């Protein structure tokens, strides 16, 4: 079937099997391999992307067909004009990643979180990231990173 999805501002029109999961559409049809797959049960969140600007979704628990006509933002779409997004900068500054496999999902969930809760507490960040697993960092530094990004974005909302 034909699907047309705008990914990071670029329209991708492809002919795919209906069973094509959005995650594999992004990885194998759009060549955007930043979105990862870590489980089959919608548990790990490595595959999280943002739909229509502010909705974090698990792209391995969604068919590409469902995203037809929608706008998807992946980790590759965060940096603007060569400048890192405040979340990317914060994950780097705070050592919020180690192996890097969960990082794209963490970043995209955090991106949507800050759209809805621009200034979350540590506790709120821990609640809102509970759909994303990380095996390396123990989450301490990821929480710090999201708080840093929130502050940066509050200071310069234009960067949103």
């Amino acid at each position, binding site marked *: 079937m034909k699907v047309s999805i705008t990914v990071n501002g670029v329209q991708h029109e492809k002919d795919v099997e209906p069973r094509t999961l959005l995650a594999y559409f992004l990885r*194998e049809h759009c060549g955007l391999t*930043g979105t990862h797959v870590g489980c089959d049960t919608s548990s790990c969140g490595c595959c999280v992307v943002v739909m229509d600007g502010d909705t974090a979704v698990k792209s391995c628990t969604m068919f590409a067909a469902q995203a037809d006509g929608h706008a998807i933002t992946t980790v590759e779409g965060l940096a603007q004009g060569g400048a890192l997004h405040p979340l990317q900068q914060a994950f780097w500054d705070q050592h919020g990643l180690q192996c890097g496999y969960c990082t794209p999902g963490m970043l995209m969930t955090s991106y949507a979180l800050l759209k809805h809760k621009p200034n979350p507490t540590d506790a709120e960040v821990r609640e809102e990231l509970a759909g994303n697993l990380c095996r390396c960092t123990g989450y301490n*530094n990821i929480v710090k990173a999201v708080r840093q990004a929130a502050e940066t974005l509050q200071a310069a909302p234009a960067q949103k």
Partner: protein
Amino acid sequence: MSTETTVKGSMGVPMKRKEDPRFIQGKGNYVDDLSFPGMLYMAIVRSPYPHAEIVNIDISEALLVPGVKAVITGKDLEAAGLGWLPTFHGYDKQMVLAIGKVLFQYQEVAAVFAESRGAAADGAEAVQVEYNPLPVVADPFTSKTDAVLLRPDRESKTNHIYHWEVGDRDKTTQALAASDTVVKQRMWFPRCHPAPLEPCGCVAQFDAMGRLHFHVTSQAPHVYRTAISIVTGIPEDKIHVISPDIGGGFGNKVPVYPGYVCAIVGALKIGRPVKWIESRTENLTSTGFARDYHMDVEIGATKDGTVTALKVSTLADHGAFDAAADPTKYPAGMFGIVTGSYTFPVAHAEVDAYFTNKAPGGVAYRCSFRVTEASYAIERGMDMLADELGLDPVELRKKNFVKKEQFPYPSALGFTYDSGDYHHTLEVALEKIGYKDLLEEQARKRAKGELMGIGFSTFTEVVGAGPSKHFDILGIKMFDSAEIRIHPTGSGIVRAGTKSQGQGHETTWAQIVAEELGLDPQNILVEEGDTDTAPYGLGTYASRSTPTAGAAIAMAARRIRERARKIAAHLLEVGEGDVEWKDYRFQVKGVPSKTVTMKEVAFAAYTNMGQNEPGLEATQYYDPPNMTFPHGTYIAVVDVDRETGEVKVRRFLAVDDCGTIINPMIVEGQVHGGLTEGFAIAFMQEIQYDKDGNNLNTNFTDYLVPTSLESPHWETAHTVTPSPHHPIGAKGVGESPNVGSPAAFVNAVIDALSPLGVRHIDMPITRDKVWRAIRDADAKKG
């Protein structure tokens, strides 16, 4: 001469990671990100039965599935002489695809190659396998009876794999008999799985010259190259193993798995690249599990709490094949560290391993081989002894610690601890957590019937395998290596035989070189994981990277410095003997004004080397003289809900001593991660099998990996006792938190429940288990 080109003090600073820019932009390069023209996908048909004869495999329907190119079975591989795969011990072997019968649930039975992931899965579903179920052996106690022989393929017709022991059995037995007090407890360290978020996988392809290019999620690419050559007979020069970015390993990516061999065979047979990426279920059910040790622990002591003897007898469940990733001479790994931080005059440890109808493995899950099991046994045991004697677990530990002045300390089980200051580290921890106040709070709460616990673990680890006289994998000694090239403009490249899976080698290795040579770490490129370019090394696991490759890198850099000294002498127009390395640059002895920087020397090495050999390169292989022995004090504070059995970890403090610290930011990150996995093992993560051999934790809905909400907030601190035998005094830290923390969590829970008379609960400590313990205790009180 100018000096602004010198960069000072690259060690011990929290340098931001050089590898991060690609990861935070989604530009990492993991195996599943690779795509090659004509690439096929492989799916594996697996057995639903834990133990069964294979009556028939019918692949005809599968071959009719659109997109399916080929199907291979055990018979095909056997015919090609590839039916079996040696495990890393060298003394057992493992079926690649089942031959004649299956020995564990989810065992590999056939491999399907197709044009797409979907078609491969459709093909796997269409393979019809007829099984004749056989009686199942689901635990080592049943296996021990040999009522059912699991491995008729082996010469010795028993399920017993090996007996290993260390220490003096008779003296230990006598000492225990003569002790005022003996505590005894069976502790089970349950089976768990490292479950890195990136599953295992590979892409196999042969080029026009018949050379195999094998991209794979491997913690040890060189060992893979040698192993693949041994298994397939392909000459080693015709094998190119590339381990790209790895999404976490934790020991899971050390062994060579059947899927890898199948992918290589498929690529050869069909003449197209083949990609195989595990599903999460395949990862949890068939690739290297960890632990599964049933330990009988006995500690003897005098009335006043001086330990007299330690005895540990273990039954090890190795599953269907002994694929434990332990060095050849140490079938039970470094379990001999079980005497821990304490001065036991005598001790004895033995391990008997058995086959069962469970997945093969026994990998070192974020620990040096079997050190986590040992550390848990002794730290739990010391708490039980304190409880038995009515002593404060802190006082008991202090009384029996190896003292600072006793190092190097020869342990009763044959290790020589390099260095440590256990009393100091403990004091730092007690101070930082406010132990006095906690004890008072606990007393108040207990008076009100509330359950609060404080748990300690003052562990000693043994890492950095290892000295060639003791350690090898498939006969290959466990040295490691480094090669450094300094370019004319003063930048350079380091290559090592290790392979980062998140540990940050691209940053820390550059820091070591920069520190040794006074160069800018930002301009030192680190490359690992490509067997065509990197010097031979044994890889990254068992916290061995810094103790082995880290040492090799420092020594290679010092070799470069010695060669540079000659060129510096030439530039400074003095004799080599008159040049000293001072404040990160060369200086004419006693003439601070006459200096030359490494950057200047580097340029001269290619442009104006005088009579000296051109270039500035060095290669160093390092065979460590001893292991390193990191240690630490961990303290957990928990509150237990009487009604629901819920345990809340209120605080957790880790004070680690891993010797010299290269990058404190990275060390802290390693500790956070290790503690979270230790927490998971203590409370959540378990691979359970029912009595029929069914795996009950086959995906992330039942194999419980903690989220940001369950995970406690971690507090950390450090003491520094350098290793005397390591070039920069570093000991390695990646695994200490995972090794040391489970006992602290369990000790805290048992401490909370001790007023009720609860002595022990096996991990994972679930709400149900805690609730029962409380209920049964209350019932006893009546």
